[in-house]
């Protein structure tokens, strides 16, 4: 009886795993197929001969190196800037007492229900007036500070004992030194989690870069892939190679740091 139960369990688990992996495996496999093989019937899963021609033409004929750079640079920049700004604010909300603190914090949390799409049109006009459309700043500026990030860091910083901060203060440490040399190291786990969330969020973001990056040379990978997939509808293998390059960096990053990512989701899920 237990044997049968176990068999059914594994059968279900493997079916789900197969369904989950098939599109990704096919994407990788098709990216190495000679041109045209993916458009044959019946569909094949193994390349007739392994070719790197699509990867080569993405980097030589098409501008993929540039898109890869744009995505990498923007994801790192947004992550670093927002980590600094959010951690400063999260620390202040957790450890300083001042009038209006709780009402400001409450206002921020409440406004998390407003979807980002609402701000898009005026934000576009503002950045247009500032001459920041089609620039890196156009993506970095709206990502500089985030309410969710401030919230995560505040919750974490609340658990730091006041006595530690007091002791540092008695030793003559300035407020900034306390933040930089005491608080930030203590908040390391949540900072890593938030950094991964921000990096992946920026890397995978589509709608805002689509709106703000109007020139081909400024496209991020998702915008470039969406654009290419319209022009190269028939070049299945080429598009699969482009998808692999877009997906691979985040998948590799994730498998290296999955512990932090998963614990971040669990922290978010349990707070309710």
């Amino acid at each position, binding site marked *: 009886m237990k044997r049968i139960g176990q068999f059914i369990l594994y059968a279900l688990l493997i079916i*789900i795993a197969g369904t989950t992996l098939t*599109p990704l495996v096919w994407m990788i496999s098709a990216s190495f197929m000679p041109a045209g093989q993916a458009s044959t019937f019946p569909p094949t899963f193994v390349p007739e001969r392994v070719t790197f021609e699509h990867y080569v033409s993405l980097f030589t004929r098409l501008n993929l190196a540039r898109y890869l750079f744009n995505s990498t640079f923007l994801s790192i920049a947004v992550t670093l800037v927002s980590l600094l700004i959010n951690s400063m604010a999260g620390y202040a*909300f957790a450890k*300083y007492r001042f009038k209006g603190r709780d009402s400001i914090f409450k206002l921020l949390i409440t406004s998390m229900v407003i979807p980002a*799409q609402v701000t898009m049109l005026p934000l576009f006009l503002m950045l247009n007036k500032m001459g920041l459309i089609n620039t890196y700043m156009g993506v970095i500026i709206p990502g500089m500070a985030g309410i969710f990030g401030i919230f995560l860091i505040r919750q974490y910083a609340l658990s730091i004992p006041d006595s530690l901060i007091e002791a540092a203060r008695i030793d003559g440490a300035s407020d900034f030194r306390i933040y930089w040399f005491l608080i930030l190291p203590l908040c390391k786990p949540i900072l890593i989690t938030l950094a991964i969330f921000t990096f992946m969020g920026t890397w995978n973001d589509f709608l805002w870069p689509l709106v703000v990056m109007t020139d081909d040379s400024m496209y991020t990978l998702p915008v470039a892939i969406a654009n290419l997939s319209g022009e190269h509808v028939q070049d299945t293998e080429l598009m699969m190679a482009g998808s692999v390059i877009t997906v691979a960096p985040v998948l590799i990053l994730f498998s290296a740091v999955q512990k932090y990512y998963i614990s971040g989701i669990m922290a978010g899920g349990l707070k309710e």
Partner: protein
Amino acid sequence: MRSSSEIRTALFFLAPALAAIGVFFFIPVVAAFIMSFTDFDIYSLGNWRYARFVGFKNYIQLFEDPLFWKALKNTLYFLVVGGPLSIAVSLAAALLLQSPLVRFKGFFRLVYFAPVITTLVAVAVVWRFIYHPRFGVLNYGLSLVGINPVDWLGDPNWAMPAIIMMAVWKNFGYNMIIFIAGLQNIPKELYEAASIDGADRVHQFTSITLPMLAPTTLFVTIITVIGYFQLFAEPYVMTQGGPLNSTLSIVLLMYQQGFRWWNMGYSAALAFVLFAFILVASLLQTRMQKQAGRL
């Protein structure tokens, strides 16, 4: 005694975040609200003064626009069918992975979670080929069990189900993790006590697991509803809203009106309708949560 200097330092730490959120979030929200009562269009782009107040004209026009109703219907279809489906798959996967009979849990969890990490645009491109009527893997698989080929993205009846299937594939791993966390929080003693009382598995599931999981389920429902209302990249990449507008979503319509036709006043009104729906949905669900808490 330290209070005035404490305020100053607090302000120093808060200023960058509050300034950024104020200028690049709160001001745009207010501006979008004002904009939704103007006829802001391509001529106003050069000079904002050309925009005039038109009262509720955009909102009235919106409710008379068959395309808006189409987009709303499609978005609700995606939400009402895709949401519960994705939550059910998440819960099923979490329960399977919680079974004491299963080994290699970490491996399966990693595999199930992989699509969550992937870039939506890139996997949407992949799925477009999986759904290919002649060469696609899906139709081939169906043909093996004797099902005739379906023109997934070319048939107005099948395009939205196809997008839903892809979204469930992409998203279920996220909620699965939250469900696993919720399941781990249920005290083991409850199950022990129940099995001493002679309750079978099914009974334990309906009288312990499901009620204890209710707060988690509610949280998962809220984030799923909010996320699914914002459907955009899937139809943008896979169908451009077609065929026959059968996958046109509210955000896609908003994008087209705002950034393709530069009808920004109209698009801003659409954004606020979207906001209203999300607000009502989250208020309803938090109220349910409070009522459930009182029981």
